[in-house]
């Protein structure tokens, strides 16, 4: 299926525009207590080799036994990717030697993966369009251990804690055409995984890593040779790596050279990709079905049960927010990007002005969380408290302006908004009589500005400001406006 190139995604080279073709293989660590084929803990960190069983250390005679929950997590993820669940799949050994691979093979899936083709819708918020990224497959495999190469001049230190942790390898079709699209894809994937609870998506801890396949071509030409940039562990780095690599390849081709198909690493310090040294000849992994295991066969009814129990996924939730709450697609998109945020919002919006709630959640509230460096899970203000604040605004007890101040106090003290308003006397003044009195005062005291009004009608803003100042911000702005206009005999704008 041809994807029409978007002009804005083409890169200008000396010889004309180039198209970047991107495919991603994302490795997502499965959320589970124990490893894929052993009962050791998957907890991050830990003393060296403390989360290692005899099986993980590949002791002679040790055998793999599969973790039922890891299988379920893979199926849930496949369903979340709108993908086909393969009821029959096989675990194969991928054979190669590396110190962090104790068996000398990785148990993976080659010919018959547990999940087949699917699709993910990715919204490019800023750019204002959406794409569909095809999923080729998802398979389960073991993660490898970790080698530290900087502890000693002559030796590498090997820790097998991570060895055997379940990974889902999610392979996309080469459907992305820009660094932004790739970043948005990984972001969306991460959101889906976190919604499902199948992976925590923590890229800093390595729960989510991407291998980025990059090639370039002139639009309409056949696919170019691709290079694989391995183990990129942040969204930002994905963008940087793609930018560098695309330009590197374009540079080579424009000089008349050709691209060597190779595996590369991204170096965040230099912002460049470089070739990996040790991957000599093309690997011959000699895949064959693991004879210590049997084929995995799933019952359709079990898959159906998992499907039924899935939480509402972001795309569906977004559509529902737009329809039920009248939100803009943009606002709905921001709110559903994180399940906890979406749940928080719904709680706030229930029985209230949904748009007002959306403005407050995406504006002041998210702003505050950002500023304080807090996750929504550790929010100093609860959904109920924020809802209460919004009620006060809706009932005209306080103005929007005052509400912001009240919110700040809520963040600091954790007190309920109603209480804060009471104690500090922040109630909005709506008594027209009182406002009129102030208005009269201001008008009387400022004859020059009254004169100015005749030529500059917008000076009314100054008057509004003065009245608000005089009332300590508590006057209802709409009432102030109305009374001022009447008294100053200015029509509606």
């Amino acid at each position, binding site marked *: 299926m041809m994807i029409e190139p978007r002009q804005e995604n083409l890169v200008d080279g000396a010889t004309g525009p180039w198209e970047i073709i991107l495919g991603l293989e994302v490795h997502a660590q499965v959320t589970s207590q124990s490893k894929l084929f052993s009962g050791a803990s998957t907890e991050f960190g830990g003393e060296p080799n403390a989360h290692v069983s*005899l099986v993980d250390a590949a002791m002679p005679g040790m055998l793999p036994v599969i973790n039922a929950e890891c299988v379920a997590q893979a199926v849930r993820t496949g369903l979340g990717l709108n993908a086909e669940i393969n009821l029959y799949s096989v675990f194969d050994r991928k054979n190669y030697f590396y110190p962090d691979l104790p068996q000398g093979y990785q148990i993976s899936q080659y010919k018959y993966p547990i999940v087949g083709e699917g699709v993910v819708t990715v919204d490019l918020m800023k750019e204002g369009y959406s794409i569909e990224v095809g999923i080729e497959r998802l398979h389960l495999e073991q993660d490898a251990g970790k080698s530290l190469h900087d502890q000693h001049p002559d030796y590498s230190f090997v820790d097998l804690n991570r060895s055997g942790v379940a990974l889902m390898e999610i392979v996309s079709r080469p459907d992305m055409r820009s660094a932004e699209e790739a970043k948005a894809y990984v972001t969306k994937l991460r959101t889906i995984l976190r919604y499902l609870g199948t992976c925590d998506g923590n890229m800093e801890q390595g729960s989510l890593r991407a291998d980025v396949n990059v090639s370039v071509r002139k639009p309409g030409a056949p696919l170019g040779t691709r290079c694989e940039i391995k183990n990129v562990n942040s969204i930002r780095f994905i963008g940087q790596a793609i930018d560098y690599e695309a330009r590197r390849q374009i540079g080579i081709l424009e000089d008349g050279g050709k691209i060597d198909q190779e595996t590369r690493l991204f170096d965040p310090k230099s912002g460049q990709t470089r070739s990996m040294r040790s991957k000599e000849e093309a690997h011959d992994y000699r895949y*064959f079905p693991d004879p210590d295991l049997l084929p995995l066969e799933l019952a359709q009814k079990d898959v159906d049960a998992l499907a039924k129990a899935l939480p509402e996924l972001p795309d569906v939730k977004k559509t529902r927010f737009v329809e039920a709450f009248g939100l803009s697609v943009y606002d709905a998109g921001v709110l559903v990007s994180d399940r906890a945020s979406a749940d928080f919002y719904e709680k706030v919006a229930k029985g209230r002005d949904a748009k007002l709630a959306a403005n407050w959640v995406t504006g002041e509230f998210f702003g505050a969380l950002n500023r304080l460096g807090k996750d929504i899970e550790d929010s100093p203000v609860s959904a109920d408290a924020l809802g209460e604040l919004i009620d006060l605004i809706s009932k005209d007890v306080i103005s929007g302006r005052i509400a912001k101040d009240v919110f700040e106090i809520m963040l600091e003290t954790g007190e309920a908004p109603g209480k804060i308003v009471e104690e500090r006397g922040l109630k909005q003044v709506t008594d027209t009589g009182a406002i009129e009195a102030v208005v009269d005062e201001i008008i009387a005291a400022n004859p020059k500005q009254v004169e100015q009004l005749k030529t500059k009608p917008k000076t009314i803003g100054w008057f509004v400001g003065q009245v608000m100042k005089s009332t300590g911000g508590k006057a209802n702005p709409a009432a102030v406006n109305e009374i001022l206009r009447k008294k100053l005999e200015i029509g509606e704008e």
Partner: protein
Amino acid sequence: MSELTGLTLAEARDRLKKKEITAHELTEAHITALEAANTALNAYIVPTPDKALDMAKASDERLGKGKGLPLDGLPLGIKDLYCTEGVRSTACSGILGDFQPVYESTVTQNLWAAGAVMLGKTNMDEFAMGSSNETSAYGSCVNPWRAAGSDKPLVPGGSSGGSASAVAARIALAATASDTGGSIRQPAAFTGTVGLKPTYGRCSRRGMIAFASSLDQAGPITRTVQDAAIMLRHMASYDPKDSTSANRKVPDYEKALSEKVKGLKIGVPKEYRIDGMSAEIDELWERGIGWYKDAGAEIIEISLPHTKYALPAYYIVAPAEASSNLARYDGVRYGARVNGKDIIDMYEETRSHGFGAEVKRRLLIGTYVLSAGYYDAYYIKAQKVRTLIQRDFNEAFGKVDAILTPATPSAAFGVGEKGGDPIEMYLNDIFTVTVNMAGLPGISVPAGRSGDGLPLGLQIIGKAFDEETVLKAGQVIEDAAGRYEAPEAWWLSETAPAKKAKVTSKTKAKTS
């Protein structure tokens, strides 16, 4: 002394229960016999006399209180393939160095839980790859049997040569062994003992140093069929830590032996009558057929058309799986390490030094047949042939209850005699390997003697998880051929050790 070591497992068990003998006496007798024989035979590579006496003591305590466990006090040899906690376990390979597992294999754990006593680790072909116990890093093992009028050392068969030799020479009441292509049944036939390979999945493989995962199976070598039944009862178990372990109740195999075989249908496969088969073996087979008829069984000729392809298919599948199973022996986490200038060099030096020639050969074959471009033509092809072999048996078992064949194409041959051509050595497994390829149970029972007076065995193959029939049918052979005889203990009278063709790992590195 020699009287105690000449008992069968069942007899010893009986006498212990009746308190006619103590576990200590029985173990002591075996330790003494072992010490007298082992220099000549090299059946044990790690004798564990202290441990054995400790275990015997504990057995005596229990037996004294009348709380004896099923195998209390019975001294056993344990093939070095089994990981035994705190006792060196190396599958007779130099690459495992001085590896002392911190864990016990499931099969041996079962035996210790039943009160059995460990005499030590027995010799074997390195990583179970061999049919003569000549590839061991700890030197060859010698068959306690000699040809009439000859003192030429003979092989005990392999890979479980040490176990077979020990049981035959009466320096173990019974022994654990393992069978991937015939490694229990062939040495049993060569040493006049009973060797039982159960159905694939009957015994747990956990803690057994893996050779070929889809073929390896634990089993006993004993002197009688009854003893084999007793041993299997305790070796077998469902193990949730082995994904290929069968979740089936373990029957009382000993009890099943009391049932008779009248009306049993015994299949005789025509394809096992191979070209150039020795007249001796053919006669033995005919005699066997006669015994079944006498016992009231019905003899039915059957066809297993893909028989001759089992061996070449085996020599693709087994090395392929081994090439992957042995990748973990890299000097990083255990075993012997040879330092190198970088990691790849370290791997290569460690593995070249640590593995013997036969193992290397098989690893290279295995790597080759799995490699890009060859996988379909070799590995997939062999696995398809395996399906056909299994189908042959399934069809045959629609007509018969058990199948009777010779166990080996010849009697035991001389140490060093078949060194040159690997394929010649592989042909030793020609009658046994079909059984592993189909995952079925098989037993070898002593059935007669060669012209030179050397033991010969006959094999019974049964349906999956029908070890009861296999044992019952095996009993027929034993009843007719006579119970085991011990070979003459020539090692006791010879002042100098018999000339052994000792092949060490150093010399192996030089030979190709």
